[in-house]
């Protein structure tokens, strides 16, 4: 062992400096124990980012263990750049979701763009070709100019990056609530496909193998971005405007093609993208996973600015960079491919067997840290959790204080025009959702469907999450999100096979926030277990808080389902006049936390719907059976806005001309607004050709799923008759389908462009 070239630790680091790096006294003590000496400044910086909440999951890790992560299809569970599930035909679907909330608030366009870039790299570092993106967004209400500006910036950033790189953005979701005005959420999901036995991992095996750096040159971008994402905002941070990263989708497209060529030619031991904490996290994570060490020379790293210190090179978050370990003797082939695509590449180090991350600057060693101390042995906290004092008052709502609905047609129109329910075409038509020519169900149905060329199969994909539910009851809210995602897939004809999550919460050092987190994780875990859907990857974003005000707890699920045959692909809209309309599932007085209460009564309160997972599963089995028999024309899950909105959507969301419906709502024992606008889970509206009606009815009854006949599809107007218990006469209304369609279609554009 050479002791002559240890990193120098000349001056002792001041307490202030340690705290500036976001490290607590105990954490600093742990660093001393790991090193057996004081760290120097570079090492302190490295520990600081790797032990940040963003990279270490120190507050969440112990809770994430509750997720079911195994199953017969799971090829890769959590722990790698992305998860993977077997989809047959020798293929695996690789997917993950990630947040870019903080950067998108500071610089919406670049923040969102680099978010897309980051998640794409997570997928293609697994050797998979990305085939679909989805984005899940949360913003403040659009009557504030600032929120409109943020939304416009974020959407154009996603559009800029995704369109340019040529991966279709096939879906997503967006809802509005002022709680997100100062903490908008930008979560991006990506799905890729790889031959199952060619899955690549972030490994650094084989002493002496060379470590290569490829991609963009390193600049001083986003130094300490990871620590920023682990910090709350206050008004001052809007002014601070820290080092923003700029995305280069063109370069990333070249990187993507180059990486797939490496795979084709079998040149690599392992590969990892340089995301948060850049060179540092990629190298120590690769070494730690493999039980090896890595030695890097920062002097060899391609740079675009002069005078960069090792500290800056190690912590830079410049985008579009990857670290890879080449198979012995294959480095020249790697370099040649990089040359062909015009990408910078350099050998920057080698794999060692001493378990250390050793950083050199030429001949001088500037840092030397056990890789596992950084990547795996960071702090873990079981932080105190307790429900907030206001939880009870959130849940208590006396519905008798609110008048029941008198004019359901007016409420329907108000809901269809409300931004959370209105058409999101203003957003997705800025995205290229067709490139790749696999998108067989474009944005606008319950789930997007992409076909897999060369097979009979397709994948359905959706993202879902209802933060108001999670605020009112985080455990049930988490379960409901899983159920809704799965229901969306099932309505599209798919069997759910895997899920990724992005958990957006406030400050985990607050017991009430931690309680929300723990409850939501439990709720998600329970539902995934009951529905047999493994969690294969995910991401946690804490500190979504400004001036002490936290966002609603917002777990988002990204779920993937498998469709075996093209005939089973099902969309949500009615197909043909004359078809019968049926409601599957039971309607209860589920108004608590509903969109109706918020839009019409300005309340975000109440007891949220109760989810019975067995009932939910029964519905899924029944729907899939009906779809596979070829018996149904359309299926749409009942969610935000309730039954009446769902029925209207079935009429107006078709890419072709809108249809109408003749609906009769049978007499009911609960409040009328509960019937029409309540959000009971485990329900779906289907349409059936007359010749299949009997078979369908019988199958539904056999399956033990409650069934209600609602009427027939018609060619134009939306006619509703609501029967009342005698002697009250029925409520009737009739609205032209085209009128409903106009309101629903143009609402967002009206608010955002001021025209149309």
């Amino acid at each position, binding site marked *: 062992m050479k002791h002559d070239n240890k990193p120098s630790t000349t001056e002792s680091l001041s307490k202030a400096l340690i705290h500036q790096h976001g490290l607590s006294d105990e954490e600093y003590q742990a660093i001393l124990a790991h090193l057996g000496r004081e760290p120097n400044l570079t090492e302190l910086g490295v520990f600081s980012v790797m032990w940040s909440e963003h990279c270490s999951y120190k507050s969440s890790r112990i809770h994430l263990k509750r997720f079911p992560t195994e199953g017969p299809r799971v090829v890769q569970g959590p722990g790698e750049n992305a998860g993977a599930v077997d989809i047959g035909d020798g293929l695996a679907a690789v997917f993950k979701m990630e947040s870019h909330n903080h950067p998108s608030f500071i610089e919406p366009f670049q923040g969102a763009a680099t978010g897309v870039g980051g998640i794409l790299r997570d997928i293609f570092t697994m050797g998979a070709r990305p085939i679909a993106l989805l984005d899940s967004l949360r913003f403040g209400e659009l009557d504030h100019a600032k929120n409109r500006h943020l939304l416009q910036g974020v959407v154009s950033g996603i559009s800029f990056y995704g369109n340019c790189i040529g991966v279709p953005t096939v879906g997503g979701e967006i809802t509005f609530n002022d709680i997100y005005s100062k903490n908008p959420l930008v979560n991006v999901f990506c799905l890729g496909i790889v031959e199952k036995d060619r899955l690549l991992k972030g490994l650094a095996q084989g002493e002496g193998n060379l470590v290569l750096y490829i991609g963009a040159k390193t*600049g001083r*971008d986003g130094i300490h971005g990871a620590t920023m994402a682990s910090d709350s905002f206050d008004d001052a941070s809007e002014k601070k405007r820290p080092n*923003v990263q700029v*995305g280069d989708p063109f*370069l990333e497209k070249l990187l993507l093609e180059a990486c797939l060529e490496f795979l084709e030619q079998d040149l690599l031991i392992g590969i990892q993208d340089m995301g948060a904490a850049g060179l540092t996290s990629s190298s120590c994570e690769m070494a730690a996973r493999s039980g090896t060490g890595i030695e890097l020379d920062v002097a060899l790293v391609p740079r675009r600015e002069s005078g960069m210190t090792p500290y800056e090179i190690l912590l830079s978050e410049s985008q579009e960079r990857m670290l890879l370990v080449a198979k012995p003797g294959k480095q020249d082939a790697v370099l040649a491919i990089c040359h062909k695509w015009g990408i910078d590449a350099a050998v920057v180090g080698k794999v060692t067997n001493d378990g250390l991350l050793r950083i050199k600057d030429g001949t001088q060693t500037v840092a030397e840290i056990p890789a596992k101390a950084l990547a795996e042995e960071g702090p873990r906290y079981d932080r105190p959790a307790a429900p907030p004092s206001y939880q009870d008052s959130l849940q208590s709502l006396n519905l008798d204080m609110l008048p029941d609905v008198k004019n359901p047609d007016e409420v329907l129109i108000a809901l269809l025009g409300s931004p959370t329910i209105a058409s999101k075409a203003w957003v997705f038509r800025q995205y290229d959702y067709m490139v790749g020519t696999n998108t067989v169900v474009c944005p606008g149905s319950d789930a997007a469907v992409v076909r897999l060329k060369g097979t009979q199969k397709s994948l359905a994909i959706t993202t879902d999450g209802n933060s108001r539910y999670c605020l009112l009851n985080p455990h049930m809210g988490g379960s409901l999100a899983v159920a809704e995602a799965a229901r969306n897939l099932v309505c599209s004809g798919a069997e759910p096979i895997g899920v990724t999550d992005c958990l957006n919460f406030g400050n985990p050092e607050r017991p009430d926030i931690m309680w929300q987190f723990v409850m939501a994780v439990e709720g998600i875990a329970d539902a995934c277990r009951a529905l047999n859907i493994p969690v294969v990857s995910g991401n946690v974003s804490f500190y979504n808080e400004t001036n002490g005000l936290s966002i609603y707890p917002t777990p988002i699920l990204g779920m993937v389902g498998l469709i075996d045959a093209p005939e089973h692909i099902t969309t949500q809209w009615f197909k043909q006049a004359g078809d019968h309309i049926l409601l599957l599932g039971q309607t209860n007085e589920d108004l608590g936390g509903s969109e109706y209460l918020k839009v019409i009564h300005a309340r975000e309160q109440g007891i949220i719907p109760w989810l019975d997972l067995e009932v939910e599963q029964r519905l899924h089995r029944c729907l899939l059976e009906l779809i596979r028999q070829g018996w149904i024309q359309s299926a749409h899950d009942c969610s935000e806005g309730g039954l009446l909105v769902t029925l209207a959507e079935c009429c107006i969301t078709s890419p072709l001309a809108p249809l109408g419906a003749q609906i009769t709502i049978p007499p009911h024992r609960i409040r009328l607004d509960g019937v029409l606008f309540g959000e009971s889970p485990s329900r779906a509206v289907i349409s059936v050709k007359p010749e299949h009606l009997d078979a369908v009815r019988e199958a539904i009854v056999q399956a033990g799923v409650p069934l209600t006949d609602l009427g027939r599809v018609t060619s134009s107007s939306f006619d509703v008759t609501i029967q009342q218990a005698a002697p009250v006469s029925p409520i009737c209304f009739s609205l032209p389908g085209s009128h409903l369609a106009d309101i629903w279609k143009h609402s967002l554009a009206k608010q955002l462009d001021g025209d149309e």
Partner: protein
Amino acid sequence: MKAKIYVTLKEGILDPQGRAVQQSLQTLGFPAVEDVRIGKFLEVDIVETEQAAAEAQVRSMCEKLLANPVIENYRYELTEVSLPK
């Protein structure tokens, strides 16, 4: 008045466009091209004859809309022009 406004990327901010153009110029037979940075050039006509007032407006426009202070710098020149009316 006419304002000529130059919006450029801040020092140290990546300029992917500039990089692509520089590389393409090099392969096109301009090996001497060392660096290219691409910014915006705006010409804004303002119905305002007072230098100071015009200047205040231009500065405010730049800050509010024309330049993105997170990643861009701006500078401007004001020239008098005889606008019709």
